[in-house]
């Protein structure tokens, strides 16, 4: 039997190293992918319930339905602001898209992956612009807005080729997509992240400890 309780004085000096801030840990990957998975579940449900209101909005003002686009854009900014690693927005959107593709949805299997990639890149750009240093509401709004632009561009590149991008429909659709991206994928996700952090679920992340004042 091999124990003792040797008294040693406390180690008072704590070496804080600033390494690997941008290196992905397993928990970063797991949480980013689960955000993607939960988002896919919500995207899938949203696609079912928004079909009717979509047409209603289009009838009111052509392009107005873009105001709902943010509902498919939030995984990227949310994952990015939580795990704070390069590529997090793209990764989360891709995981969501692959899962959606396997489930099957109205944009087709393979194509969904492409949409996810494009929207993820849009969201990611905002964080790249600030070199993954500024994690604030402003960056989130930019991320949501760029993701909206990506979504708009993709639509006109594919399904809506027949509509003049510079016409009123194109402009309205761009504005509504950007506003929707900012409000839902940017603003709402910022507060969602703060709310999740307050539950202590993000204590493994600098993002969570910052909100809880534990750093």
């Amino acid at each position: 039997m091999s124990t003792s309780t040797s008294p040693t004085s406390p180690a008072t000096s704590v070496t804080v190293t600033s390494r690997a801030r941008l290196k992905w840990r397993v928990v970063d990957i797991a949480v980013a992918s689960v955000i993607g998975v939960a988002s896919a579940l919500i995207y899938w449900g949203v696609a079912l319930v928004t079909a009717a209101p979509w047409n209603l909005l289009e009838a009111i003002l052509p392009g107005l339905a873009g105001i709902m686009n943010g509902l498919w854009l939030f995984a990227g900014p949310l994952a990015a602001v939580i795990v704070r690693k390069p590529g997090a927005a793209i990764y989360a959107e891709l995981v969501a898209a692959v899962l959606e593709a396997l489930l099957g949805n109205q944009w087709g299997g393979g194509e969904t992956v492409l949409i996810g990639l494009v929207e993820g890149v849009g969201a990611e750009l905002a964080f790249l612009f600030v070199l993954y240093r500024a994690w604030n509401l402003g960056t989130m709004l930019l991320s949501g807005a760029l993701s909206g632009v990506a979504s708009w561009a993709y639509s006109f590149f594919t399904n809506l080729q027949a509509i003049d991008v510079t016409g009123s429909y194109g402009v309205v659709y761009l504005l509504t997509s950007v506003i929707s991206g900012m409000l839902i994928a940017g603003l709402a996700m910022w507060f969602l992240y703060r709310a999740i952090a307050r539950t202590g679920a993000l204590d493994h992340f600098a993002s969570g400890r910052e909100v809880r004042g534990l750093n």
Partner: protein
Amino acid sequence: MTIQLREQWTGVTETPTDRKSAAVDDSAAVLRDANAMLDGDEVCSVAEAGSAKTAGHRRAVPALEFRNWGYRHASRRDFAVRGLNLAVQPGEHVLLLGASGIGKSTILCGAAGLLGDDEGPVRETDEGDVMAVEDADGGVTEGSIAVAGVPVHRAQGKVGLVLQDPDAQAVFQRLGDNVAFGPENLDVPRDEIWRRVDDALDAVGMRGVQLTRSVMHLSGGQMQRLAVAGALAMQPDVLLLDEPTANLDPDGVDQVVAAVGDALELTGATMVMVEHRADAWIDLVDRVVVLGATDDGEGGGDAGIVPGQDGRRTVVVADGRPEDIFADPSIDFAGLGIWVPERYRRAGDAIGAIHTADEPDYPAWRGTGEPVLTTSGLAIGRNGQPIASHLDLEFRAGQITALVGANGAGKSTLSLTLAGLLEPVTGEVVAAASLADGARGTWPVDWTSRQLASRISYVFQNPEHQFATSTVLDEVMLGPVRTGMAEADARQLATGLLRRFRLDQYAAANPYTLSGGEKRRLTVAAALAAAPRVLILDEPTFGQDRRTWMQIAELIHSLRGDGVSIVVVTHDRDLVTALDAKVIELVPEQCTAEWNGAGREPVPAAGGQDRPGRDSRKQNRRETVVPVTQVNERYEEPKSSSRSACLASINPVFRLGGAFLVSLPMLLSLDWVSAGVACLLEFLVLAAIGIRPWRAIRSTWPVFIGAPCSALAVLLYGKSGGDVWWQWGMMLVTDRSAELAVATALRIVAIGMPAIIAVLGIDATDLADGFSELLRLPDRFVYGGLAGMRLFSVLQDDWTALTASRRSRGLGDDSKIRQFFPQAFALLVLSIRRSTTLATAMQARGFGGTGPRSHARASEVHVRDWIFLAASLAIPVLALVATAVNGTFSFFGN
């Protein structure tokens, strides 16, 4: 059984609070005793910091050694463990004991190499080998851990860890893949991996089990054996078990204990385990280590048991053979929150029926008055499939009923049905007039959410399924406010309840941040606040140490005085004894009842298998046995990855590639000729590979909804030209826009339909293998993503539970949209917690390192895969050639 236990132990229970102060005084003496014992012990190896080096070559290197080790989690101000010195010799089987919060799990995680890292600068202090290093998680490590003399972070694969929650440890859908995962991460060659998988499954008694079987249908015991097999396949020298049986029913516990016992005998591995209820394990254990904490600066001489004080150090309060430790009268186990295994229990440790001065004068198992809730001809089940039928049961005020039976026997199904949260398959659950007064009818399942909340409350097994607000106070006020109480009154009531449940200091805290025991108390307080007449608790004592267990048991006992009818779903025999509850056991057909005197002296009153119907109505019966349909041992046909056998034989990566090739070139031209030709070709090809047009349309129906929507937008706002058909505001329908609309609709079908069918049904694991092996995407991300996807099905179950809990709490009457967002939030929090645990489980299998990894499954490529790609590309090429020849090619719709 319950009768005898009660008589035997009546009057000898003592509450832990009475003894707590004594424990503090005793512990210094305990420590001296422990040290004295150690000195005289011949097997004693040395962990005294100074002499460890000289001792090292005299005797075998310890299998596991902590030297002044400590860890502070990033979110905590205090060290969870500090200054720990402990050495475990090869082949020892150690049981670690200590109160909740003493850092047992942290110790195991540290030993598994999951805390801290060996990168970056390390600074030694003047104290020699005590160093403090911050890791990427923001945690701080002190001291060191060595596995067979090697620093733990360089001993990858030498240590296997099994965690508490069986569900959290499965990374893959298929059973065999989970066992293969550890060896893959250790870069074991493929043939060797499958040999190890067979051996490991053999060792846990799962020989010959179908390797492709889904983990979805395994029982808790089987899942946990699988987790043990997964750890064994790494061939670790040290096996760490963190409460491996806390979540299991008695049968599952037996399975896991037997599996671990056999495996240890076979491999000779060292074992270190943490388990609150160690009864079943005690034969396997040859050394017990009791942990406590001491205040800093007192030189370790003043051992206390109070966790959470700054500067405290972790000390070994006692260490020795189980028979010596548990026989030591100077150790106050109850005060330390430790369950003494039944074999070693002394009078003071035994659990007897709780009695208090203010309890009602009728026995808890009988209750009083007329039944408040009755079932007649009730059949229960989910999705209309009955698992038990002809249930005639009664529940009275002041009565405590325990629903017992094996996992999967339907206890939760029955309790949810009783609570009005699940539709009965046949028959009915009827509320007495006194309970149903003012509600919509007498069937709880028909009541509105608010009517239900003030009458029947349900406390879920996982407290996080239940939280609906952001502060502890709001959580308790929710029920009363929802059922019409004024805000001020509700606040007063809630404050009182929080005081009674000793949660008042947390009133403003976020409910999720409480400890496990506190969360449990909060959910009970919140359920009680709505003043229900019936309270149903699902496994209220899971994973609690002895102290919190006692608190919960006393709490439930005290509710009886309020005239509440209490139903407890449980595996916990001690709880049934303590509450003196009436027992209703659900027994699968062809199984024997476990609770009616099995292996004990016969209880005359229970007399074999009761016929439910008539007999259970007799209120002097203390036990009722309800037969339920057998939980089947399943054989699953391997699931085909497509309705077309041809498609199913194609490599998943090629299927995804084909989906791109068949669709993307179509974007070049927007005209009805290319789109029409492509559609036609696709229907022909799909029919040729066994998917008829009607089937193709049915499985891609969303495309056929999306296509007209986009076509309409194009018709009204599309590029114009030719005759104007109709104009109104911004809408302009012309020859050109009409033509483009038709083309758009056709093309969406031409692009979407084959792209969906090509990937629909692909197995996620096979796709991940392809991503990793063929596309060379990084394994960390591919398999991390895959693990996240497996949580998808778990999250669906969570969603169902969240929906039920919200109805139970009076939130179910809100509009769908108002319900959706808070519920989605709860799901997100749950999923993040689950994924954090999953990350730990994956790292415990050696995942996430930068070294090479092998692959247990080969992602094979055949000639047919290339033919598939070529055929996929041929369709759009032919379509575009057709439109070019026809002169209708329209580049990007221009």
